[in-house]
């Protein structure tokens, strides 16, 4: 699975420009599923038809379930190219100026840039504002600058695997949410029989507006939806208190700042984890939300929940997850899908 994860995290795909990552995911899932389509905003919808269990003879015991992971990552977009060829930019999704200083970014065609910080700032001890940052692609003037207003770039960081006795940590940019894409692909790969009608949705534009999940869910109209996304942890020095820790298992979301998990979905995840002896944690996230917040409001409502992969340093170029948590997430999803 490590190769799959590496491939996914290192592919370019900021919100709104997901073609490249969609192509990579499509290549992985095409041989595995019945039906596959790309919806109007660009989300990749993969359908795995359910089959009633042998000997049960019961029609309709399965439900229509959506599993969602978003393909898009945060990034930056050029807003202006000045006379000397330096590019000013705005953020795509939740990027903090703190992670920008000295960062390396890459555009769709591979052009690399460095983010510089204005030295003449009024208060150099404060975090710089976006207006005080710029991208240097090595141009000398507006005319010879290879990037233009509207071009999008992502942060550049290679995938790293840290093997330790206590567990393997995986580090890369875009673990949010490519790690969940990997989980979904692996789940699809290992899923043999299911009584449910399952849709694996790789959605677009989560980091900006949750648009892809909202519209794809409308198209499918499921009985139940589970978003798979990363969540924060409370196990770093001087961090905000939070009950989730790396390596203690996937987290079942109770609530976050944008939604309250439907008790039925939350209990289903907890139940299956207990039955199959999969370690799990309960999660309350005070800042941040996921696609589940959008999915639950579609049409007359969709009972929704979230399976979260604990992750340190979210929205920085070095997001860190635990490999055991990732594998247990796949396990848990398989348990949910295998039985009615």
């Amino acid at each position, binding site marked *: 699975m490590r190769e799959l994860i590496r491939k996914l995290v290192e592919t370019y795909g900021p*919100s*709104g*420009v997901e*073609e*490249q990552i*969609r*192509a990579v995911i*499509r290549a992985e899932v095409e041989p595995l599923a019945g039906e596959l389509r*790309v*919806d*109007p*905003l*660009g*989300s990749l919808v993969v359908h795995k038809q359910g089959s009633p269990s042998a000997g049960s003879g019961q029609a309709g015991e399965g439900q229509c379930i959506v599993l969602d992971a978003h393909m898009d990552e945060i990034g930056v*977009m*050029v*807003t*202006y190219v*000045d*006379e000397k060829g330096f590019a*000013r930019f*705005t*953020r*795509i999704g939740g990027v903090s100026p703190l992670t920008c200083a000295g960062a390396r970014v890459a555009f769709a065609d591979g052009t690399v840039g460095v983010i510089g910080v204005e030295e003449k700032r009024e208060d150099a001890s404060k975090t710089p504002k976006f*207006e005080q940052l710029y991208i240097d692609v090595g141009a000398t003037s507006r005319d010879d600058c290879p990037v*233009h*207003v*509207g071009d999008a770039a992502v942060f550049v960081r290679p995938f790293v695997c840290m093997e330790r006795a206590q567990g393997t940590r995986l580090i890369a940019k875009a673990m949010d949410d490519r790690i969940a894409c990997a989980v979904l692909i692996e789940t699809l790969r290992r899923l043999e029989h299911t009584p449910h009608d399952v849709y694996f949705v790789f959605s677009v*534009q989560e980091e*900006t*507006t949750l*648009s*892809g999940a*909202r*519209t*794809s869910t*409308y*198209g499918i109209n499921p009985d139940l939806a589970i978003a798979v996304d990363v969540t924060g942890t409370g196990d770093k020095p001087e961090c905000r208190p939070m009950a989730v820790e790396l390596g203690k298992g996937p987290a079942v979301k109770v609530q976050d700042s944008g939604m309250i998990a439907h008790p039925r979905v939350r209990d289903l995840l907890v139940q299956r984890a207990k039955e199959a002896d999969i370690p799990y944690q309960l999660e309350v996230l005070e800042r941040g939300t996921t696609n589940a917040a959008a999915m639950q409001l579609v049409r007359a409502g969709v009972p929704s929940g979230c399976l979260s992969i604990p992750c340190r340093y979210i929205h920085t170029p070095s997001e860190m997850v635990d490999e055991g948590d990732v594998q247990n997430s796949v396990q848990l999803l398989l348990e949910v899908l295998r039985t009615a």
Partner: protein
Amino acid sequence: MILRELSEAVGVSGNEGDVRAVLLDAVREHVDDVRVDTMGNVLAFKHGTGRQRMRVMLAAHMDEVGLMVVGYDDDGFLRVRSVGGIDPRLLPGTLLQVGPEHTPGVIGVKPIHLLKKGEGEKVPKLEGLVVDIGAKSKDEARKLAPLGTYATFTTRFRELGPTVSGKAFDDRAGCAVLVELLRGERFRFDLHAAFTVQEEVGLRGARVAAYGIEPDCAFALEGTIADDIPKDKDVSPTTELGQGPAITVMDRSFIADRRLVNLLTSTAEELGIPYQIKQPGIGGTDAGAIHLAREGVPSVTVAVPCRYIHSPVALLRLDDFNNTVQLMRASLSRLTQRTLERGKD
């Protein structure tokens, strides 16, 4: 000039009746069907030649920002709140028209002679401002301007040469562009034009219009920020007057569909129509609501650059306006189902 009529019509969010009337008159004979929905959107339909089986939505919003009467003080002054985003710095010294009778009103503040040290530096807050319609008592004020009465600027439209000035170019400029498009030849596809309500308070009309129309793609037509006045730093003007229609790639409400952006830019380049990319990350438009309708609608926003939008007097260039109409007409003529196809990805 339709832009003059539209600019001078009064239509604050939730009270678009006068603008609706102007538009119904302007388009009635040029479309196959026109109706007003429960929110007040004007929905006009122009069927296509049948060569392309597509539903294309064009939207422009009728409403402008303004004020609402929410209370009175004992001397007959009106207390107001803003409808949509009004910058309170623009209010001291303005002339307003209040209510359906267009009752004149003024906003004045404490005279400069009486200011204490440092007071002149401060921006008066909206809660501290009052509108004076000349009433002598609370009761008289209440009769003349009951709670909920709308007020807006009284700016007259003026032709200045290559430019024109007036109020509410956001988005009467977009409405005027849409009227011009409806007055022209049929396109190959069915065209659903929506003159929407309540964009300024949350993209409200567009949301229900898009749900009803179920388009395959959508174009929002706007009057947008041009901040091309002299500055200390070499930074983006957002858009510039004279550089042609401004295309949105991303703003705070949505990300434009790249295939539609490419259609517009390649058409512009081929025909030599000037265009610009609006500074990404600024503002929001009806496309923000439209793209979320049902299963999703690929969308883009095209705007006429306007200086001083949301102020009593905005300014735009007629050549930018005409180029916007031209670019839209040409791009729509080139729009086919193939535009929305995807490669093998």
